[in-house]
């Protein structure tokens, strides 16, 4: 989601290269077919040889040494200066801040049976802040959303999630905006910081949970830091981009009047880039929200916890209600920050405030304070459990509906799952996991070279070496299988819907809001419908991944198809081609760069989702990470799984990015 905004779009394919482009494509296609053929032959001959299996409970030497590392950290926690004072200080500070905020807003502040400010007070404060920053419509949205948290029965979890999210966002902005400014000013800073941001955005979030636990131990501080790492890149990149796009003419004019760099920054660049920077803040808030839900795994407070518990006990009703609260929160934050940015833009252009606004703000502020006071003195205004409970009945209804669906369509859902599992998943998994490791390495390197050249081949070699080194070859192959199958299905969906949207304006206006909404939803939530329909299996992880990656890929393909010059399409139609011929022989080939970019984005989204799917039976690397939390002797293995996930992600990213760049060059 955040990755899409920041990658530079690949250049459009030029008009007249269709006949010329066929030659290299045909050659690439033939080479790939030859590699596939050699692979199948090798698999048939050497099946089961040197596949590097590792029992679930077994550890390699490297993983054991990671366990020892964890023990060393534990033992040194109170004696080592850096651990005790620096990290311990950060941990205690963050924990204290979050606990204070929770005691104020969401958790009972002993001996009070309710928080310091009850639900009515919190609602009033939110409404007033929203009105001040984003206007009346957003205020209505915020009031309804906040009420829904209470009515659904997840008040304290929702406020906890908001606290963790905004604490992380606060530090993101504190670090990110100055960093973005520094990047915009200095090329040196850009070259140093960009690769770090790349890694931060490519790394699936699961992989840095366990190392963080090493440093910060479980709890709110680990959750905040994990969210911070994940949500930092968008605001940095977008701030730098916004500052760089301020019109050079304006900058020239200001410079020529004798402003210093500081004055230039403060009086011209920052105000003019304000709209873009607020978009960056919006992206960061959405990223922080999605990560904060995953942070439930490190015992971070918030809505993630009831979702994880409900998923693991297969309680679809509760998972749905908690997931619904997360979705409402995501929509609320997204719309409100967008409205705030539009209002900021309007006010900047208008140059002055609306006449009675200040008075209205004061009056409503007084009302809000009155509400806060009420919530401190009366139980009805403080205890959300006294409100009517919509969550319970909704959970029951959802559970019954799901049971009915799974019972009635038992045949269909099981059929789809078994067809995909026995037809696609198991054969590919057998090909990857049952072939000797040296065969698979050779095949992957060859594919990398054919698709992208020697650079991605080299990077792939390093990444595969890392995967072999950490000793999780089998698990990585299973995850890779799920990733490839899910990406293939995503690309099929992307082509089908993308072509339809690209060719038909009506389809586009109808579908785009759905896709936008889909991208707002934090990935955790997709596990719920997938689990409900297909039970805890690998196919479930694939379905969740398709739901998560679909919107981004579809939008990229649709934009690519629309980018094909209408003149060319006209010419082809006029020459007598059927619709199918126009699509397959003109539009798709010319949008090839967009297709490969969609594959790249799809792959990364799918990888991170397939890993999360380890929670609901997806097994492999994602499961190994989670088991690192569950069983102490598997911690080293979980840490190794995190490293393998990163290696896999970098390898897939580099191959597809270089392939995309190649397509763009043709």
């Amino acid at each position, binding site marked *: 989601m955040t990755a899409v905004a920041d990658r530079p779009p690949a250049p459009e394919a030029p008009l007249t290269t269709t006949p010329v482009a066929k030659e290299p494509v045909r050659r690439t296609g033939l080479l790939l077919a030859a590699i596939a053929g050699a692979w199948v032959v090798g698999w048939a001959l050497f099946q089961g040889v040197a596949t590097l299996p590792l029992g679930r409970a077994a550890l390699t030497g490297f993983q054991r040494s990671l366990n020892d590392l964890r023990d060393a950290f534990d033992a040194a926690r109170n004696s080592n200066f850096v651990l005790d004072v620096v990290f311990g200080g950060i941990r205690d500070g963050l924990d204290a801040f979050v606990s204070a905020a929770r005691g104020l807003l969401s958790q009972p502040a002993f001996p009070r049976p309710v928080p310091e400010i009850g639900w009515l007070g919190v609602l009033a404060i939110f409404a007033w802040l929203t009105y001040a920053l984003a206007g009346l419509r957003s205020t209505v949205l915020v009031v309804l959303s906040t009420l829904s948290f209470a009515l659904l029965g997840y008040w304290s979890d929702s406020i906890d999630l908001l606290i963790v999210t905004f604490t992380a966002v606060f530090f993101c902005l504190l670090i990110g905006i100055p960093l973005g400014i520094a990047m915009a000013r200095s090329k040196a800073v850009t070259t140093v910081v960009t690769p770090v941001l790349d890694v931060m955005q490519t790394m699936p979030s699961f992989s840095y949970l366990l190392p963080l636990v090493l440093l910060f131990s479980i709890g709110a501080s680990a959750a905040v830091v994990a969210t911070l790492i994940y949500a930092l890149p968008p605001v940095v990149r977008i701030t730098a981009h916004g500052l760089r796009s301020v019109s050079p003419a304006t900058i020239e004019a200001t410079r020529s009047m004798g402003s210093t760099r500081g004055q230039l920054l403060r009086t011209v660049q920052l105000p003019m880039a304000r709209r873009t920077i607020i978009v960056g803040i919006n992206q960061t808030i959405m990223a922080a929200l999605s990560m904060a839900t995953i942070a439930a795994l490190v015992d971070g407070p918030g809505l993630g916890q009831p979702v994880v518990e409900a998923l*693991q*006990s297969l309680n679809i009703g509760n998972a749905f209600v908690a997931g619904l609260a997360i979705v409402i929160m995501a929509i609320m934050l997204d719309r409100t920050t967008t409205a705030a940015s539009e209002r900021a833009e309007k006010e900047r252009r208008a140059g002055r405030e609306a006449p009675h606004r200040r008075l*209205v703000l004061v009056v409503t502020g007084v009302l809000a304070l009155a509400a806060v006071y009420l919530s401190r003195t009366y139980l009805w205004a403080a205890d959300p459990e006294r409100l009517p409970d919509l969550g319970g009945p909704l959970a029951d209804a959802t559970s019954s509906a799901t049971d009915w669906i799974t019972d009635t369509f038992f045949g269909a859902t099981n059929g789809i799952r078994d067809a995909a599992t026995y037809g696609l998943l198991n054969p590919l998994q057998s090909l990857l996991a049952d072939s000797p490791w040296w065969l698979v390495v050779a095949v992957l390197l060859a594919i990398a070279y054919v698709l992208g050249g020697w650079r991605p081949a080299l990077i792939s070699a390093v990444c595969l070496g890392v995967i072999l080194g950490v000793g999780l070859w089998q698990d990585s192959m299973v995850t890779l299988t799920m990733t490839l199958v899910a990406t293939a299905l995503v690309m099929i969906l992307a082509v089908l819907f993308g072509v339809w949207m690209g060719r038909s304006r009506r389809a586009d206006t109808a579908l785009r809001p759905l896709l936008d909404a889909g991208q707002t939803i934090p990935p955790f939530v997709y596990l719920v419908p997938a689990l409900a329909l297909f039970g*805890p299996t690998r196919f479930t992880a694939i379905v969740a991944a398709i739901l998560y990656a679909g919107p981004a890929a579809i939008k990229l393909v649709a934009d690519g198809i629309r980018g094909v010059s209408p003149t060319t399409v006209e010419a082809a139609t006029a020459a007598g081609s059927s619709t199918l011929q126009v699509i397959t022989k003109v539009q798709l080939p010319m949008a090839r760069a967009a297709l490969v970019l969609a594959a790249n984005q799809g792959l990364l989204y799918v990888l991170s989702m397939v890993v999360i799917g380890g929670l609901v039976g997806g097994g492999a690397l994602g499961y190994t990470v989670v088991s690192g939390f569950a069983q102490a002797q598997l911690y080293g293995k979980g840490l190794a799984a995190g490293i393998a996930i990163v290696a896999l992600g970098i390898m897939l990213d580099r191959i597809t990015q270089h392939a995309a760049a190649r397509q763009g060059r043709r």
Partner: protein
Amino acid sequence: MRTEKSRVLRLSALIAAGSLVLTACGGGDIEETAAPEGADECGDFDIAINPWVGYEASAHVVGHVAATQLGCNVEYKSLKEEVAWQGFGSGEVDVVIENWGHDDLKQTYIEEQGTAQDAGPNGNMGIIGWYVPPWMAEEYPDITDWENLNSYADLFVTSESGGKGQLLDGDPSFVTNDEALVANLDLNYTVVYAGSEPALIQAFRSAEENRTPLLGYFYDPQWFLSEVPLVKVNLPPYTDGCDADPEAVACDYPVYTLDKIVATDFAESGSPAYDLVAAFNWTNEDQNVVAKMIAEDGMDAEDAAAQWVEDNQEMVDSWLG
């Protein structure tokens, strides 16, 4: 028009000020519901909750007594078994009320780091094992001997077990040697995790109802065994030290004397909650009663605990000394 608008605004300002004054007049009812006496003496009491209903039952009974009769500020934290131990040192967790073995964690946190202490047995005896539904034990009487499991492997194949028989485990954080057992006893089986205790129970329930094959991990105390009397499969008998190396286990599970683990800081704090925890003691049957209320009857854990305490005040009094 402008005067109209300012009039409206002035009026609303007046209303706002008025309501503020009015609210200052009313008495609040929050102070009346503040915590009972003894609050200062007891303070915070953090109980870890591990993800099985028996544990939840024990924890909520102790927590309920501590909150209502000792005035403690009880907080329940949902944590996996092993993660909870990390909380002893950082002050997040005061007590783990039901510990199954975990000699390795005792070695690290009690012997080496000293952040935790053993507070004695809680009266429950834990038995883990491999079980089949009763109908299978009737139809295949020799399935209860592990040496015959390989001949029945085909019965247990599922889409996730990769062509081998499926051994269904529960929550992956539960104490389990099943991966090692399957490997070391040369069994043609794969361990598949149901993910949680409710999923495991559901699987056994439908296996018995629909007469489908199922081999799985299960344990006592567990209220479900009174609903469906699962039959145990006998693995090589336990001998002392046979499970010392987790990767080399080839014997059945021992009978665990379940005990209570407390944080050293909590034990030395003089809190009355610690005395309660040290004295807490009840049987498997007691726990099953409360667990059944929570899981089967759908009662809220606090309500189930409150009901049991009400029915068994004598036993509670003996804990409070």
